[in-house]
């Protein structure tokens, strides 16, 4: 009886140890791969390292879009603060001045170098007028 108990105890401990180790590894992988989301007004109040990928969401400021060949630059604003964005590539169909946008990229000299530009859409796939999640 005692031998069986001991065996069970060892099994349970082993299971606990492995799952703890597994969870630890998974959560570590998770923590090093998070994309933090900021609004333009928050961004310069935070200390964000240049090698950290972040998401910035806001409205494309009217009249701020400049294009040069495949490069595009624009300003994202939440009407409290704003940030310059540079991107090389195609912007989505829903990208428009005065419309909502989310940019994924890295900070460099107070400019966001974009990896990806996403326009937001809801169930009806329409660009939302002003509601960017805060």
């Amino acid at each position: 009886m005692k031998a069986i108990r001991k065996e069970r105890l060892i099994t349970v401990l082993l299971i606990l140890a492995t799952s703890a180790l597994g969870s630890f590894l998974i959560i570590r992988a998770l923590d090093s791969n998070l994309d933090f989301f900021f609004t333009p007004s928050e961004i310069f109040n935070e200390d964000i390292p240049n090698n950290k990928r972040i998401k910035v969401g806001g409205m494309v400021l009217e009249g701020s879009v400049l294009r040069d060949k495949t490069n595009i630059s624009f300003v994202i604003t939440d009407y409290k603060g704003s940030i310059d964005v540079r991107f090389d590539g195609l912007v989505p169909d829903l990208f428009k001045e005065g419309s909502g946008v989310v940019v994924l990229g890295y900070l460099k000299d107070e400019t966001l170098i974009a990896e990806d530009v996403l326009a937001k859409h809801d169930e009806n796939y329409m660009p939302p007028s002003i509601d960017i999640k805060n």
Partner: protein
Amino acid sequence: MCFIFSFFLNSKDIFIINLVSRIYTHSFFIFLSSFFIYIWLAISDNFSVLYIAQHSNINLPVFYKISSIWSAHEGSMFLWIIFLTSWGAVYNLLTSNDQPLKAKTLGVISITSVGFLLFLLLTSNPFETILPVPPENGADINPVLQDPLLAIHPPMLYMGYVGFVIAFGQAIAFLFEGNTNIRWEKQVRSWSVVSWSFLTLGIALGSWWAYYELGWGGYWFWDPVENVALMPWLAATAFIHSLSASSKSSILRIWTLLLSILVFSLSLFGAFIVRSGIIDSVHSFANDPERGLYLLAFIGLLVMISLLLFSFRFNLLLSNKKIISLSKESFISINNILFGTLIFSTMLGVMYPLIYEFLYDQKISVGAPFYNAIFVPITLLACIFLYFSIDTKWQQSFNLKSLYRPSFLSITVSGIIVFLAFYKLSITNFWTLSSLLIGLIIIIRYLIVIYFYFAHKKFANLYSVIAHCGLGLLIISIALNNNLSSERALNIKINETEIYKDHQVSFTNLKMVPGPNFDSVQAEFLIVNPNGKTYTLTPEKRKYFARGQVTTETAIRAFFLKDIYMTIGDQLDDGSWIVNIQFNMFIRWIWFSAIIMVAAGFLLAHSLSRSRS
């Protein structure tokens, strides 16, 4: 309409199997007819129904009038329940009444259906009307959903999701009965494999649609909506494997029961995530806390009851047989653990943003890097265990020596191919090379199995062999696609030529093309490949009348190994256009592998159900 649904309530109270069966059939037909009425309403443009008015349009082709039914929330749930009850009806039809678990299984199915029907009626009634003055025309289905593939993708996916209700119902009925001599596992195998095939097909179709319709050129984005479809798939895959173990002996029974509950709850959880809009997704569908709350409560209740039942019966289920190490069961249970880890990680990735925001008031998102870091090594590890399990037998430790000869051949051949890939294609990424190696080893090893099957009549489950070859191919294709694909944005004027990767890209023409319910700007590109062959690609931009929405239509030219994929962006002030060109390597092979698995799944299910009867 409400009265019809209440019929379902009856089928639980009556314990005479025949009666249950009959009542189920009758109420099912009444319910089904309500769905046909709905289809007819959609076809005949009856815009006094709010939902149809919002999602259909007079100008739509009939096909899309029907598919508009499942283009948004209410109709989707309607279809979901129709499939749920249909699975029950087919089960009812094909299972003889002397099966001990039949009545209870039907009871579980009915209760689940009733739960969903109440959900439909209370929070999202598809029959809601706009009276007395219905609009003259509907608001139209979203243009990106006006696509034949997307018309059949949700039905396939739902078929897969809710098909597991049979396994779930049987499992609960089995637990309820508490008679361990009932071999329920055998009866649900073919049902589960069919559902798994539908689920796989549904996911593959969705991925293909996203590839050509959304214009991003990828096949998987690790979006929450995709992840909640992946989780039941992973659970279902583990489930059908451990089902095959426990239908032979009572080993792994606990796994099988737990997995059957897990698969079904994850399917429901998927419905909850997608329908509540609680998670920020690129294609988040709806934002309705009431719906979310109801679904969450319902799922929570189902899972809790199932697990309680399970824990009550736990002692009965303990098998006195031990899993012999290096037997087939041992490898299946190891892979069950690995699959469990994948499901857990995916769940964490989906839920972590919510938890994090709640705790730290900071919005975050979890992207592809996390999932890749978890999925690539674990999948490869699972494949290694799969490889070892090929030679194993049920309940017998296998002889390591028997591994040498076939392994020698498959590992040598794969090694040479991988070395060539490294040398010729200069692939240096460790994970790509390992995926390549492991994928190839699996395929070649299974080819040896097929050879022995035909040449020496050595027994093998041919369909499972084919499905696993599909898996090997899938891994290889994903690895190569990931490593070899490339893209670039070009800035090009009409009649100009640019060079991209030894291909000449000439912008030859631009014209306006009117469509049935949209206007389109169509660009024409002439591509000359290094061998001098020319191809024309015509990407478009469309503007739909009803919603004024602009969509991009990609132009894709498919070759044996690669796709040339073009989209047009905006026109600049100097008249030039921004154009994106991608070379997507091996991307077709990804879906092709999925199709192999689906076909093998259906064939396996067919052979299983024949051998049973």
